[in-house]
């Protein structure tokens, strides 16, 4: 064996590399195998669809290599991650370019690219084997120093995480800590070995690499290889169906446990509750502790903030849904009684208990707007009254779908992991809405809005939240409002803002009737009110803590009134707020101009 091209110290590295590659190939086959048949087909088709190919390339570079989302979150954190990951990547790439552009090597018969396979360890230890050309030497040293600068930030972050804008970090177990330590020491060892060429450091460097790679599959660092697969699966438009299989499994392994979701989660206002956040949920589910995973899945408020702040875009809410749906229920819902509801008039007053939903006579030729208040708005009748007044003033041809109590939209049932059992309610509402002859459906409750948008098939009927509807009325001049002097702060309801990006319409409405001041956290960052129907396990006290935190956040710029667009937020805030809490419809009614 030629000493210029081989040395026993490369063996630990080769061993680690072989192990991690085998693990990744087996894992890849496992994930694809576990996908349901139609999902697998969809995935394979997406790999050859030009649109998804472009999205894949964009995100593979943007997310895996340049970490754009982390840069956006915090530039220093972005630099920390990029310098290590991108720097390492560049060292490997430049090393290989160097390998196949080199003059014929002693003892190496193959030429060009083929060397990357026969002598793949060469670039990792190149300084030991050959003296390099100055340009490559500069680039290699540059990126190595860049990595070490990133590691320095990482070490400081470990001691004082606020330096990168992170308040709480994930707590790790032994394996994660050990691999992290291995990662931190790999590059200083390499630097020392390269500069001094002392054998002991080459060995330490190689053994460090082996530890890193052999333990990688059992730690959070598995996100490095898995994220690429996850991006491909995500762009294929798949959804997690089972909590620990197929797509969900790829997501579990893609979670880097970075803990950005810990600060974002409304539950971690209480430090003891930060164990309920997605970072821990993913870890626990990955380790197979199903009882604990179930507990967290049922505690989560499903506000969706962790999904939006996640630098990997992991759909943790979908996994929690599938976890909820995985629980077997002994008793299933029976909503067949909904058949008693009918729009046929002869049923009214029927002693059998049949109900008639009567819609107003079609006097006007104007297109009809149907207003569905929803369960939560039934508990806050002032919203209903305000909406009625708004529609009257605007001269709309309107009707109420649930004046005397309607059927639930089905979203709470879906949230509890029983999507099939929500179908009876969805079918009944669809039937009633279609019979009403309306062309526009206005909803006051974002919970309903989400399910109507996603689960209902109401072709030809425009579905609007009342913020959008009011905005439309004001803009088209049907509703004339005056600008008051009150300072309002707007709270973005989770299922309106984060779920559908309805951020601007309510703000424009408020700016028309008063002054809009900013909250501390807005739009994507808005904090759940704590009343969410998504959670089953949070107790009233735990919810109150979240509400208080959210109210404090809204009161940051000392507004005169809090305005929201969700009856549930309204009810929840009213308990804790030091100022009046109002729905956007009420605020508009207060500022209606007399000459409408």
């Amino acid at each position, binding site marked *: 064996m030629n000493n210029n091209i081989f040395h026993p110290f490369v063996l630990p590295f080769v061993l680690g590399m072989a192990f991690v590659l085998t693990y990744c190939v087996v894992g890849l086959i496992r994930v694809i195998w576990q996908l349901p048949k139609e999902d697998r087909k969809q995935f394979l088709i997406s790999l050859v669809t030009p649109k998804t190919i472009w999205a894949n390339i964009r995100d593979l570079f943007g997310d895996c290599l340049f970490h754009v989302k982390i840069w956006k979150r915090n530039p220093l954190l972005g630099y920390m991650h990029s310098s290590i990951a991108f720097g390492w990547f560049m060292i490997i790439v430049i090393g290989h370019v160097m390998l196949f552009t080199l003059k014929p090597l002693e003892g190496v018969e193959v030429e060009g690219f083929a060397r990357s396979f026969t002598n793949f360890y060469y670039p990792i230890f190149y300084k030991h084997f050959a003296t390099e050309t100055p340009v490559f030497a500069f680039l290699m040293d540059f990126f190595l120093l860049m990595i070490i600068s990133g590691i320095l930030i990482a070490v400081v972050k470990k001691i004082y995480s606020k330096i990168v804008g992170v308040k709480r970090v994930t707590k790790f177990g032994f394996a994660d800590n050990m691999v992290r330590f291995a990662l931190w020491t790999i590059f200083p060892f390499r630097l020392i070995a390269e500069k001094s060429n002392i054998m002991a450091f080459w060995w330490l460097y190689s053994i460090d690499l082996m530890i890193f790679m052999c333990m990688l599959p059992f730690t959070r660092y598995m996100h490095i290889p898995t994220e690429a697969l996850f991006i491909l699966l995500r762009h294929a438009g798949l959804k997690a169906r089972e909590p620990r299989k197929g797509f969900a499994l790829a997501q579990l392994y893609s979670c880097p446990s970075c803990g950005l979701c810990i600060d974002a989660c409304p539950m971690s206002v209480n430090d003891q509750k930060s164990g309920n956040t997605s970072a821990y949920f993913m870890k626990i589910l990955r380790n197979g502790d199903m009882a604990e995973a179930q507990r967290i899945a049922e505690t989560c408020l499903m506000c969706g903030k962790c999904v939006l702040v996640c630098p990997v875009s992991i759909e943790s809410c979908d996994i929690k849904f599938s976890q909820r749906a995985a629980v077997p229920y002994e008793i299933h819902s029976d909503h067949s*009684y909904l058949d008693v509801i009918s729009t046929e008039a002869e049923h009214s007053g029927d002693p059998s208990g049949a109900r008639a939903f009567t819609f107003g006579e079609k006097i006007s030729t104007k297109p009809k707007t149907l207003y569905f208040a929803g369960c939560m708005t039934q508990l806050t009748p002032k919203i209903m009254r305000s909406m009625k007044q708004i529609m009257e003033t605007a001269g709309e041809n309107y009707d109420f779908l649930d004046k005397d109590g309607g059927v639930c939209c089905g979203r709470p049932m879906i949230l509890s992991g029983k999507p099939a059992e929500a179908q009876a309610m969805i079918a009944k509402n669809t039937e009633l809405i279609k019979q009403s002859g309306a062309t526009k459906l206005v909803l006051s409750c974002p919970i309903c809005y989400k399910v109507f948008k996603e689960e209902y098939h109401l072709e030809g009927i425009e579905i609007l939240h009342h913020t959008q509807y009011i905005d439309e009325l004001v803009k088209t001049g049907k509703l004339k409002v005056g600008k008051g002097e009150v300072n309002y702060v707007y709270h973005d309801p989770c299922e309106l803002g984060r779920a559908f990006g309805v951020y601007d319409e309510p703000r424009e409405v408020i700016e028309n009737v008063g002054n809009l001041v900013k909250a501390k956290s807005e739009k994507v960052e808005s904090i759940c009110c704590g009343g969410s129907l998504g959670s089953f396990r949070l107790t009233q006290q735990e919810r109150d803590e979240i509400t208080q935190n959210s109210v404090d956040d809204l009161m940051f710029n000392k507004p005169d009134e809090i305005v929201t667009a969700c009856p549930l937020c309204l009810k929840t805030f009213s308990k804790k707020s030091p100022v009046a809490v109002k729905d956007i419809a009420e605020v508009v009614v207060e500022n209606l101009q007399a000459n409408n």
Partner: protein
Amino acid sequence: MDFGFCLSPSSHVKMDSVDLTTFNRLKETNPDVNTCIACGSCTATCTAGNFTEMSFRRILLMLQRSKEEEAKKMIQRCMLCGKCTLVCPRGINIRKILLDITR
């Protein structure tokens, strides 16, 4: 002896023979059921109660009288909309209790 009339059969529940296993198990996992004052706010707001006899207050009562089958039948009507939980003056997490009974 037939007098042509009789007393109607007693409808009272014999508490000595009542099987409280389900209710006791529920109390363990959801201690807040103990705080219910049977005010009936949950029943008054119930969306399903608008169309049927669904009443959470009665479900609790049925379980305490070991009328489990009736309680389970009633629970099937629930839409889980959560109005009951919102209006409960004692802050009882009714939706969780309902889900736990059906498990």
